[in-house]
């Protein structure tokens, strides 16, 4: 068994170098396709991060009664914060609300009209950020039930629906596009490897004629395909690492507002590139050799 694996690996290595032109062509195709796939993955990750950022802007706002005692407000705040779907609860008292209103007016260069008022007309509010913008239902109903504290809850249904429709369309579109690119990559790589195998049809025929078992014919080719995939993936990762610094300098200003974690992104990307490369290399060889062994 061990000698069979050693034999297959040795033959795969020989096969790769003795057919250097085809091997290099297959590897180059692999690299091009994996770079394409990586670029798509990065762009889609950016898109997804942007969409998450937009979705997090959706919050539930409860206007509080002016006569609600502070104790009950802080109790409600704690109750809401304890709900599983809530990410954070912020209490804005009347004075802060007025100050924020004044600041907004000033930023827009409008006259501060509040100075003519003898009382503060703005309600205190609880601003609730959700973990998932879909799940506002129970938060809203909990707030509405507390009529002793809560005056009104802003209707967020419409806003949430609209934002989510747009982000879902963009996400689905992105995934469909990634799927199409993935399929293209699959066909091109499998076909390139098929060419490399077809170029050695005579070798396979001779192996069959001298009485090599299917396993002895198949495994060296599969290892060779995996080798092409591994090599292609490693070259791709090197290229990406070289290209990452200048690209991220460019993109940092754009991405800095987004919750994009570059560390986990590059780790995911490395895993995807390696798995795709080795997987497709292996699959391509398997499929190609199979058609010769089926006879």
């Amino acid at each position: 068994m061990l000698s069979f694996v050693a034999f297959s690996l040795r033959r795969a290595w020989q096969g790769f170098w003795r057919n250097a032109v085809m091997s290099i062509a297959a590897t180059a195709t692999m690299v091009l396709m994996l770079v394409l796939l990586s670029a798509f993955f990065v762009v889609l990750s950016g898109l997804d991060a942007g969409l998450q950022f937009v979705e997090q802007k959706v919050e539930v706002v409860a206007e509080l009664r002016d006569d609600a005692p502070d104790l009950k407000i802080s109790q409600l705040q704690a109750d809401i914060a304890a709900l599983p779907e809530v990410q954070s609860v912020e209490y804005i008292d009347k004075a802060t609300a007025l100050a924020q209103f004044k600041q907004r007016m000033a930023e827009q260069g409008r006259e501060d009209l509040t100075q003519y008022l003898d009382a503060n007309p703005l309600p205190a509010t609880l601003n609730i950020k959700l973990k998932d913008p879909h799940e506002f239902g129970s938060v809203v109903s909990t707030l509405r039930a507390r009529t002793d504290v809560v005056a009104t809850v802003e209707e967020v249904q419409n806003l949430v629906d609209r934002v989510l429709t747009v982000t879902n369309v963009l996400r689905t579109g992105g995934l469909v596009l990634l799927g199409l690119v993935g399929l293209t990559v699959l066909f091109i790589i499998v076909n390139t490897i098929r060419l490399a195998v077809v170029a050695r049809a005579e070798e396979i025929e001779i192996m069959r004629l001298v009485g090599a078992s299917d396993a002895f014919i198949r495994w060296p080719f599969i290892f060779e395909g995996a080798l092409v995939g591994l090599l292609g993936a490693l070259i791709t990762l090197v290229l990406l690492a070289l290209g990452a610094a200048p690209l991220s300098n460019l993109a940092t200003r754009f991405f800095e507002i987004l919750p994009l974690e570059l560390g986990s992104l590059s780790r995911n990307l490395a895993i995807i590139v390696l798995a795709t490369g080795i997987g497709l290399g292996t699959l391509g060889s398997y499929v190609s050799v199979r058609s010769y062994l089926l006879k």
Partner: protein
Amino acid sequence: MASPNAAPPRAAARSLRDQPAAHLIAESRDDQAILVLHDVTKTYPNGKTALRDVDLVIPEGDFVFLVGASGAGKSTLIKLLIRDEIASKGAVILDGLDLARLNRREVPRIRRKIGIIFQDFKLLPTKTVRENVGFALEVTGTPRRQIGPAVERVLALVGLSAQAAQLPSQLSGGEQQRTAIARALVHDPRLIIADEPTGNLDPLISWEIIQLLSRINELGVTVLMATHNAEIVTALRRRVVALEDGRITRDELGAAYHRED
């Protein structure tokens, strides 16, 4: 648990089907025949019938010329022998094994009992003579330390020891064919099948190849050679099997290429 009732009827059906073949296998053992074709017909999926009712018995150690025009069925016959194709009707029994009954996984084992030689040599251009011959052992799982001595032995037999490190492109046609013969021999086959082995060679070299095959035959290996080369067939006066339109029209010992009566 599998039902115990399921097995016996199936086994019975099998043994019924196996009966004629079993009978032939026993017969082939008695006669020391390496190869028996019984009533073999081969019809391809496109409807073309390449062989009709072929009966042929080749005893161990025989030297047989298979002659006939292109399209007479020689190639199909050879394909049946190496189980590249399966007979539509009848039995092909090689060394006591019915090829039609052979499991796909057992085919490689049968092929190792046969050495095959082609008109176009079928050598791997990127491998040296030594590697081309060793390849046949390597890909059938022979331990590496046994490959070297076996290869040197057959290279000596075909007279190519001095060219062992050369590539096929550096060899003459005759040397390339001798490399192919060495590769066919390295498994110690019981039967050598040569399909037009001299088709690409000039007359002098052809004679060298025939002499080599005769010497191998003298060592006890059965040789079946398909050929168009009338001069060689007539000169050697061996057994001649002639195919015409898929039928055996002549099977004579000590015969010439053409019918003499």
